[in-house]
């Protein structure tokens, strides 16, 4: 049976017999932002507030919020929660959605237990992405103040970005201070609730714990957390998503995790001055050194390089893939892997902003890696995907945004990408 057939069979047998909107992630999977007091059941969902008053009475309310309980009941009743539209759109288009892939992370027995549950019941998590705060020393072009204090500083110092019409979510207009509820030295009831929950239940139920930021290795909470995790008896795997950038003390990190088997996930999608332009604050050579330190460490199980493929990263992406191949030859083929995701928002940094012929030509350079399904999917996407209907506005926003980005960050788009000058001048 092909993989597609297996997934369809799973969906029909395991999920749709419960309800056609049932998804195990609503019960067993979560992303929790402790600094913002927000949660979502998977990364496709919009986040919502966790009630700190509820958490003080019941630490499981970190995940088992009133909103998720309402959505669970909707799923049990066969109603599609509106926040899960990413999956419904895929299914309506005849594709297999992420609710199938995500539900497969959990046993059929646990899914049945969720199906038979009362919607008021609290569930313990099995997969958790956890952010302590949004402290970050970098301000990548496609990130925003909701995930980076340096981005917030940009907006505070220079004001909102103007004339970026497709920025409907105000990513480039707002400091988003309200998404950092606590000062760094303040006690945070959400953090306390997480530790209590771990001690009571999560150390037994969690299979994967992924630590996010901001930049998690700059969080004031992080060293205490690592020491605390090491002292616990658990089968849970621990992963860090870190930018391995300046000010990240990689040596201290590697010493702190000695004896563990950690997965390091680190974002990068191109090389050298292209990387340093897009990922403002990164030092590409330092990043390479830090990746090598991680691969050489006995405490690092694997390094996963997260590509957030955007228009500007396409030009020298093959060089990064080549670098990763070289690392595999030195450190072993299982020491490092790639995870390739196509940036969707902001839409003016999506690859479709580029002329179709240009993006098709650029991905020709990725052909040597096309046996990787993620690379081949990217190649197909760049060659066939249509321009958005509002492409003229999207391109105007590209030009307007990067003009302001250059001024604020002392950069030069055209000096860094001279090959787009004639196209850029015509926008």
């Amino acid at each position: 049976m092909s993989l597609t057939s297996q997934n369809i069979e799973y969906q029909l047998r395991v999920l749709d017999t419960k309800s056609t909107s049932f998804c195990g992630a609503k019960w067993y999977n979560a992303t929790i932002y402790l600094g913002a007091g927000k949660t979502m059941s998977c990364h496709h969902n919009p986040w919502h507030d966790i009630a700190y008053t509820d958490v003080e009475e019941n630490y499981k309310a970190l995940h088992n919020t009133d909103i998720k309980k309402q959505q669970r009941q909707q799923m049990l009743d066969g109603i599609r929660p509106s926040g899960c539209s990413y999956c419904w759109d895929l299914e309506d288009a005849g594709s297999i959605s992420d609710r199938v892939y995500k539900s497969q992370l959990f046993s059929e027995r646990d899914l049945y237990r969720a199906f038979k549950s009362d919607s008021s019941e609290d569930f313990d998590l099995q997969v958790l992405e956890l952010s302590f705060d949004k402290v970050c020393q970098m301000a990548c072009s496609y990130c925003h103040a909701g995930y980076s204090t340096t981005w917030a500083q940009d907006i505070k110092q220079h004001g909102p970005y103007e004339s970026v019409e497709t920025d409907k979510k105000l990513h480039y207009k707002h400091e988003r201070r309200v998404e950092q509820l606590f000062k760094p030295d303040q006690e945070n009831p959400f953090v306390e609730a997480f530790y209590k929950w771990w001690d009571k239940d999560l150390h037994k139920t969690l299979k994967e714990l992924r630590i996010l930021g901001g930049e998690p290795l700059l969080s004031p909470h992080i060293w205490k957390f690592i020491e605390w995790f090491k002292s616990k008896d658990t089968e849970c795997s621990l992963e860090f998503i870190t930018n391995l950038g300046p000010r990240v003390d990689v040596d201290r990190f590697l010493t702190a995790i000695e004896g563990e088997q950690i997965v390091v996930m680190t974002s990068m999608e191109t090389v050298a001055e292209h990387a340093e332009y897009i990922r403002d604050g990164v030092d590409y050579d330092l990043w390479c050194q830090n990746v090598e330190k991680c691969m050489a460490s006995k405490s690092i199980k694997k390094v996963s390089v997260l590509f957030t493929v955007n228009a500007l990263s396409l030009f020298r992406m093959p060089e990064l893939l080549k670098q990763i191949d070289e690392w595999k030859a030195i450190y072993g083929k299982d020491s490092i892997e790639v995870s390739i995701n196509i940036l969707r928002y902001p839409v003016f940094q999506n690859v479709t902003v580029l002329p179709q012929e240009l993006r098709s030509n650029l991905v020709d350079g990725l052909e040597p890696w096309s046996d990787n399904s993620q690379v081949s999917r990217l190649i197909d996407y760049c060659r066939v995907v249509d321009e958005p209907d509002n492409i003229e506005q999207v391109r105007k926003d590209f030009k307007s945004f990067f003009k302001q980005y250059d001024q604020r960050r002392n950069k030069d788009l055209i000096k860094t990408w001279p090959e787009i000058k004639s196209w850029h001048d015509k926008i």
Partner: protein
Amino acid sequence: MKDKKVLVIGDPTQETDAMCSLLSGRYGGKYIGLHTTEPKQNGFYHFSLADVSTLRAEELIKHYDHLFFLKTKKENFRDKEVFHATRNFLLYVKNWNPIPYDVFDFAKH
């Protein structure tokens, strides 16, 4: 409070409007009512986090001199999501002090 712009934040019901009116009378200010843009004149305004997003609220409160949060029980909020957002917004104001605020408990007055 007479010569100030005062914002009352509560749940999205007529009760919040009534409380705004009551507070304006108590403090001698002009009652203005529901308002979701920047205030132009002194007086007592109100909105809920069902009317504006939290990010918009963060911007709007900078244009006021004083905030009142109406103390309302969770079960009395029609929309739990708005209740949680309001409680966390209060937490933000309490911790970062962008402007002076009070929590107004009608039951105690």
